[in-house]
Structures are given as structure tokens and as C-alpha cells.
């Protein structure tokens, strides 16, 4: 019974933890402009993150090393250093977007200017990182994030033309007023939102925090293979809500209030309150994960002691790195930069940086010296190579498309 509860908890937190500000914004923007014609990318992204998270969780459990320790060991200090700079900066960008997202969600609830919320949000994130046990932090935000199911409920209440939605999703075409360049730009953004690198840093470092061993591999597989696809369904529900409400009116989503508008239309004040709780939980959870990831990547590269299972005094540089990352995020947000724009950039750059973490994990997952008999099987490797091609293509195409489309506008 206890074991069953453990599995249920793991799956639920994986669903709730899947969505972050990147998924919320990108799916809503895409829904409002392209309907469900990019829903296939969410499917591709979810399969990819399942594959990648499952591999990195297994590597962390069997080899007892987290992602950046492996990157450093396998690529050597120089290449790994370049990798660290890129990964750290993109993680910082994502952290900035998440903290901004918390502030925007709190603004929706309170009508208080986001710049007043930003320092409060960052302080709360830091306090939780500093004080709270790892398992509590993961489970509470994951479970509260489940309230985003309200997007799926809202979609039913809106009573859409299901055949029209199915038609958009199953025979995707570029809508008339959009060019193919922006279609592919948003395809890459959606892919980057589903497969953000920090999820993997957090997942593999979390496996070390919780002292996973070979025995836990099966449980982690269930969490990932059940939880993430449900998270993907919620992503598509967000896009569908935006498609139903905004696409026919040619309104382009550019703010958080627009993202939640379909829910408010369908379910009224109560649904709006629920969705705000969900967004605060999802962005807060992701801010914790990206905040911790900034410490994990640096500490694992430089060989500092790290981990929430140590008291802060025993992992001083790890905690200092996270404080500095949070301060930088606050400073960036205080310049009045639009957190939604930051989010849109962060998901695209996530796609750019993805091969840097994907390749080392793939190599080590095949190395019997680390993995013993738990190396990748043939089927996993076949799929992993297909994804290597997809990830490389998305990474190489992202920046040219960013420039060509002027950031998708």
C-alpha cells in the first residue's frame, strides 16, 4: 500500500511538475495563432523528455553521478566549461522567466504591480530552497500544480467544435496569415518548452538527493512514462483553450491575463482562482527547480559539495551560487522587461542548448564502465539516435529562425 502511494505521488508530482511558465506561455501563444496545428510537436517533445529523463534518471541511479559531473568527466574541462557557460546562462534565463511568472500570477490575483511582487517572489523561492526538505518542496508544488487540470475542464465547458480541433491537430497546415518560418519557429519553441534542459539537471540531481539506487529505476520509469504524457495532455489543453477563444477572433496572446481568459470565460471566478493557484504553484515549483539547477550545474562542474541533504553551511558555495542567480533574476526583471518575452526567448534558447546535455548522457548511458548491465537497450538507442537528429536540427535552426521571424512576430 505504501509502495502504491509512493508511485501515485511520484506520478502526480510528475504531472504537476511538467508544466512551467514556458509551457503555459508557448502553448497559449501557439494556440491563439496556429490552433492545434502544432500539437504534434508537443507529442514529439513529450516522447523526447520521457526518453531523456528516463536515461538521465537511470544514469544517476546506477552510476551515482549527476548530469554535470558526467559532462565534466566525459567531455573534459574545456568543452564541459563551454557547455557549463551555455547551460548556466540558459538556466538563468529560465529562472528569470519563472520568477517573473510568479509575479504576473500574483498580479492577476491582487492587482498589485508585478515589480512589487518580484522581490517577494524571489525571497520566497530562496527561503524554500534554504529551509525546506527536498521531498516536501518537490511534492507540494507538484500536487498544487495539478490544479492546472482546470484548463482541460475549461476546454470541455467551452464546448468547442471537437471535429474542427481534431482536424487542426491531425492534418496540420500552416494557417493562411502565418508564414512557414514562424510556424517552424514556434515548433522549435514548443519543443524547447517541453524538453527544457533544467528538467534533466533537476531530475538527475534530485535522484542523487533522494539517494536513488538501481532499485528505484523502475519507479522513476513509471513516474516519467505516466506523468509526463499527462503533462503533455494539459499542454495541449492550454493550446486548445487559446485556439477556441482567440484564433477565430485573430487575437494574439501576449499576456498572462489572456492565457487564463478562456478558463475565466468557461468557469467563472472559481475556475479563475483555481487556475491562478495552479500557475503560482507551477511557476514557483519551476523557479525552485531552476534555482536549484543553477547551484547543481556550477557545483557539479567545479566539484563543490552540493545538495539539499547537506546543511547550507556544508554546501556554502552551492547555496551562494543559488542566491546570486536569484539576485540576477530579480535585477533583470526590475528593468521592467516583459516576463512573457523572457519566457519566449528562454524556450528557444533551451532548444539551442539541448544537444550539449543530451549527447553526454546518451554516451554514458551506453558505457558499461558506468552502467554495468543497465546500458541502453537497442530500442532505446534507436529512438535516442532519432532524437539526436531532431535535437540537433532544432538547435541549429533555432537562431536563424529567431532572426528571420524577428522573434516570431
Amino acid at each position, binding site marked *: 500500500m505504501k509502495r502504491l502511494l509512493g508511485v501515485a505521488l511520484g506520478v502526480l508530482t510528475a504531472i504537476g511538475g511538467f508544466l512551467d511558465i514556458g509551457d503555459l506561455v508557448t502553448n497559449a501563444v501557439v494556440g491563439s495563432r496556429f490552433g492545434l496545428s502544432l500539437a504534434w510537436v508537443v507529442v514529439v517533445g513529450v516522447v523526447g523528455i520521457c526518453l531523456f529523463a528516463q536515461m538521465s534518471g537511470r544514469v544517476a541511479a546506477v552510476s551515482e553521478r549527476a548530469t554535470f559531473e558526467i559532462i565534466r568527466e566525459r*567531455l573534459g574541462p574545456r568543452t564541459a566549461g563551454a557547455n557549463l557557460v551555455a547551460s548556466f546562462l540558459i538556466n538563468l534565463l529560465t529562472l528569470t522567466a519563472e520568477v517573473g511568472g510568479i509575479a504576473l500570477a500574483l498580479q492577476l490575483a491582487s492587482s498589485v504591480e508585478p515589480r512589487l511582487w518580484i522581490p517577494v517572489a524571489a525571497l520566497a523561492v530562496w527561503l524554500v530552497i534554504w529551509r525546506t526538505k527536498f521531498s516536501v518542496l518537490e511534492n507540494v508544488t507538484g500536487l498544487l500544480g495539478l490544479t492546472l487540470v482546470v484548463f482541460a475542464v475549461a476546454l470541455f465547458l467551452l464546448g468547442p467544435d471537437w471535429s474542427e480541433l481534431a482536424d487542426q491537430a491531425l492534418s496540420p497546415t500552416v494557417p493562411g496569415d502565418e508564414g512557414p518560418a514562424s510556424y517552424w519557429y514556434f515548433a522549435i519553441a514548443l519543443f524547447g518548452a517541453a524538453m527544457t534542459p533544467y528538467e534533466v539537471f533537476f531530475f538527475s540531481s534530485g535522484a542523487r538527493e533522494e539517494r536513488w539506487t538501481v532499485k528505484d529505476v523502475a519507479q522513476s520509469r513509471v513516474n516519467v512514462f505516466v506523468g509526463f504524457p499527462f503533462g503533455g495532455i494539459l499542454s495541449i489543453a492550454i493550446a486548445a483553450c487559446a485556439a477556441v477563444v482567440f484564433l477565430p477572433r485573430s487575437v494574439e496572446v501576449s499576456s498572462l491575463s489572456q492565457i487564463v481568459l478562456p478558463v475565466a470565460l468557461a468557469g467563472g471566478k472559481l475556475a479563475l482562482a483555481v487556475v491562478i493557484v495552479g500557475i503560482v504553484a507551477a511557476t514557483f515549483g519551476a523557479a525552485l527547480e531552476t534555482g536549484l539547477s543553477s547551484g547543481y550545474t556550477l557545483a557539479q562542474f567545479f566539484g563543490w559539495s552540493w545538495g539539499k541533504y547537506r546543511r547550507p553551511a556544508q554546501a556554502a558555495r552551492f547555496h551562494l551560487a543559488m542566491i546570486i542567480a536569484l539576485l540576477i533574476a530579480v535585477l533583470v526583471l526590475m528593468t521592467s522587461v516583459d516576463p512573457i518575452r523572457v519566457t519566449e526567448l528562454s524556450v528557444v534558447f533551451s532548444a539551442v542548448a539541448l544537444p550539449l546535455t543530451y549527447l553526454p548522457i*546518451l*554516451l554514458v548511458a551506453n*558505457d*558499461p*564502465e558506468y552502467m554495468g548491465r543497465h*546500458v*541502453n537497450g537497442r530500442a532505446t538507442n534507436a529512438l535516442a539516435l532519432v532524437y539526436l537528429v531532431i535535437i540537433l536540427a532544432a538547435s541549429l535552426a533555432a537562431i536563424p529562425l529567431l532572426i528571420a521571424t524577428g522573434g516570431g512576430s
Partner: protein
Amino acid sequence: MLLSDLLDAPVRAPSGDPLGYVVDVRLVLDGPLDGGLLVQPRVHGLIISPRTGSSFLGYERSDVRSPAVLARWLRWRHRGTFLVHWEHVATADADAVVLADGYRRWSPAFPEGAHRHV
């Protein structure tokens, strides 16, 4: 000299013919305990790849063949990679590594059964 100075350095035979580039430096831990806690690492030799100074990503150490496309590509890119023992290195600096007369090309793979810790 720093270890990273050696990486990518071009390698020449005693005759002056170019042999390739240093892609890795192999260390072994087989000495006596230094101060009772740690073993001093010892430079065993250099891994030399004939065509490129880029990394072999560890595939030189074993006969791992997966994922097939990557393994095959890396093996092809680094075909002819060999190990020379450090005692057969005549001079070594960042500009060039020159091997001594009578150097031998050893297989870069680990001996069977060594270094297994899983």
C-alpha cells in the same frame, strides 16, 4: 606545464613526420599512498589520433558499439588512434610533441577487466 597544454598538440615521429594530435593523456593510479590518503597519479602515456584533435569521447577505451551511428562515426573519425608510453616521448610542449626512437603503437583500449567499478 599544464595538462591542457598537451591536448590538441601536434605529434611528430623522431624523423619529423607528422603522426597526429594528442587527444587524451592517460593517467594511472598505481603508486604508493601519498601521505597515507591519496595515490599520486602517474602519466602512463598519450593517446594520439592521426586526423583530428577533437575528443574521442571515451570510445577508445573499450569496444562499446552503441549507439551504433555515433560509435561508428567516432571510430571512423579517429581511425588509427594509438597509445604511446610516456617514456617514448622525447620532448613535449604546447607546440609539438616529438616521440623518441623505437616508440611503439599500443592499442588505446583498456586491458580486459581493468577499471570496472560497477
